[in-house]
């Protein structure tokens, strides 16, 4: 599969760095463009275009860290900050708008009720995206 545009949703979790590095590795052979997006989920009782200073600050930090990780891995990341009611829908729409051929989502290793837990956003992106989706799950921490 020859990739030309990869979308990497970034949540600010530790797995972000690994996902960005993986995206750089995947993009290298075909010189694909990598887009990093952070979605600020806006509650229903707040206008969608409200200025949410703490969330914006955090979002900028997440994107700055991801950009740095991409540069360290020898790649380049174009970043974008979004506000939406649901992160998954915004990620799917952005991938469609940017004509991406892959969404590379990172999953933090979490267990709930004895099972590995997949977040709702990851699940919705997996099920709803039109392009290919690759989920990278963080390795199980050694106990």
């Amino acid at each position, binding site marked *: 599969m020859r990739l030309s545009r990869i979308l990497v949703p970034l949540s600010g979790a530790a797995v972000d760095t690994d996902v960005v590095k993986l995206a750089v590795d995947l993009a290298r052979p075909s010189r694909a463009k990598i887009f990093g997006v952070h979605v600020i989920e*806006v509650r229903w009782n707040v*206008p*969608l*275009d*409200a*200025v949410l*200073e703490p969330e*914006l*600050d955090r979002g*900028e930090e997440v994107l*700055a860290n991801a950009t740095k990780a991409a540069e360290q891995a020898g790649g380049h990341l174009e970043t*974008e*900050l*979004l*506000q*939406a*009611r649901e992160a998954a*829908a*915004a990620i*799917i*729409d*952005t991938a*469609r*708008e940017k004509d991406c051929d892959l969404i590379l989502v990172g999953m933090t290793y979490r267990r709930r009720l004895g099972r590995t837990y997949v977040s709702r956003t990851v699940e919705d992106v997996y099920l709803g995206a039109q392009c290919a989706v690759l989920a990278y799950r963080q390795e199980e921490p050694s106990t």
Partner: protein
Amino acid sequence: MLWPLAEDDPRQRESSASDAASSIEERRTIAGRMPGDRVVRIVRPPEFRRGHGGIFVATPEATKADTAAGRVYERMRRILFGRPIASEAEMGERLSIPTGLGVLATDNISSSAYATEEAMRILALAGTGALVLTMPISLAIVTVLAIVVLSQTQVIRTYPGGGGSYAVAKNELGTIPGLIVAAALLIDYVLTVAVSTAAGVDAIGSFVQPVYEHRVEWGLALILLLAIGNLRGVREAGLIFSAPTYVYLVSIGGLIAYGVLRILAGDAPPALSPPTPFPAEGQESLTGLLGVFLILRAFASGSVALTGAEAVANGTPSLRPPEARSGTITVLLMGSLFGVVFLGITFLATRLGAVPDVKEQETLMSVVVRSLVGTGPFYYLIQISTSILLVLAANTGFTGFPRLASVLADDRFMPRQFAFRGERLAFSVGIVALAVIAAFVLSAFGGSVTNLIPLYTIGVFLAFTLAQTGLVRRWQRLRERGWWWRTGLNGLGAVATSITLVVVAVTKFEGGAWMVLVTLPLLVWLLFGINKHYRSVSDALVLEDPELPLPRPLPPIVVVPVARLDRSAVQAIAFAASISPHVRVVHIATSEDSAREFDRRWERFGGRLLSDGREIPLDIIESPYRSLLQPLLKYIDRVDQRDPRPITVVLAEFVPHHWWEFILHSQTAFRLKAALLFRPNTIVIDVPYHFRDPGELSHAHSEKVPH
């Protein structure tokens, strides 16, 4: 009209939420794939990024030039000075102790290369037999240095924020003593650069004759090189400049060890003679009062070795934290290394019987090395490393002067520009100022170390004395733990350095020290004057009650000088009408015919009527002497006299496409702006009209512009 009209203003269509957002950040709402899905994309321009708390931070993109000439200039700057460093990277620019030693201690350590010679040159006036006194004088100098170094550790401990002796004197003794110290140190840093470069050129001139013949030019070139190196930033300058310090220390250490071993083994070779040695019989006597004076002069000349001892205390903030600890270790290392090298060279020179050169054609160091190891590779290693170190000692001046100047600028005793850090976090204005002044001094003294030395050291001893006295006062006032031994140490330092100061001032007075003693009070007066100005400006500008609402001035009287009724003039008149209903247009005509012609055009001009139906008044002044500026200024004076409100002059300025096209236009607006700059009660607004290509112009003309 080239500007959007009020009804077309896109800002009026923005939503309320967007009003809360910054004007830098754009928010675009995009419909999603599913019904009802919407995403707000926050678009940030590449020139700015969002920092914490809603503050925007300019990125490197924001500093990029837009024009081709600007980009070429930027590239040249990058090659010379390197890439800009962000303020947050300041900590990474700090110096480690080894690098700090190489940067801040080079002045002091390098003095060891010529201090012995300077003392010997005075003693040799009484004949070469008097040179036996060199070692006792050197021991006295090292004793004073030890006291100064220990006292400096107290300065560093008390004022790790920098400023060194200036900070101590200002805080403990008062503003004037502080300024005396500052002025003395500033003079001394200039002389450090001049003396060090001259001494470095001399060292190379000892074995390369053409360098000796053009020593001023070589000195100036070295000052330029050092200035560029320092403009690249303290850390980079440190990395470049600290290596030669260690090469010098290792090679000179090896030479001293080799020489001492040969002397102990009874295998010491006799000293070789320089090209023009001092004669065995001197012109002056060593007996009586004159003899005492000669010995004191030798001590004063050798005391040049103590210069640079204050540089560490002044530059402590450039060291890695904990700054006080780093500074203390650096100053102690500096003193120890200097003592060993200085006494070692003096020992070798006196035991071998080396005599200095009358014409400064060969340095004493060269004579000693040549006598011990010949003119082999080791000779060249020592000569080259010495000359490089001597030149780099000037770097201490480049580290100290800008930093002290920045502290003074922060305290409003020097122009504020000295406090600004350049793109490489270096105090660029201070570096450039120092380079210019030092180059002037070096040229004025013909690049001669001996001519410059009498000016040197007075400042540094004055600074030491006042700083030590200040610390004594501090310990007495605070009575902290250990105050009594600190008082004793700094008291001893104050006494030792004040005695040295008197000796240096008296013995070097005729030789040129008087110049420093004259310059010093003038500089203090200048620094005080600058502070007085800043204080008066600050008093005039201060907001007494920050909670007061914004004042609401009456709409101003607006005067629009119009030379020709063209698009540029129309744009200026339209703008004037938008800020006030009291607009007047004035035209200066050079003949009655042109006045009539302008009046006719004005009558046809639809824009002379305001929206409320009133007509913009026009005043036409005929200037039979063809002077445009003066009648216009007199007209503005008359209008201003009739109304207390500030007069606002709106200037229509035509801006050509290329810079060279400026010479094809009279630039009256530019001249008028310059003439009105210092006129009180006058606001000048420039409305530029940028030249556009003919196609675009005709399109704009057909659509909007009345003409």
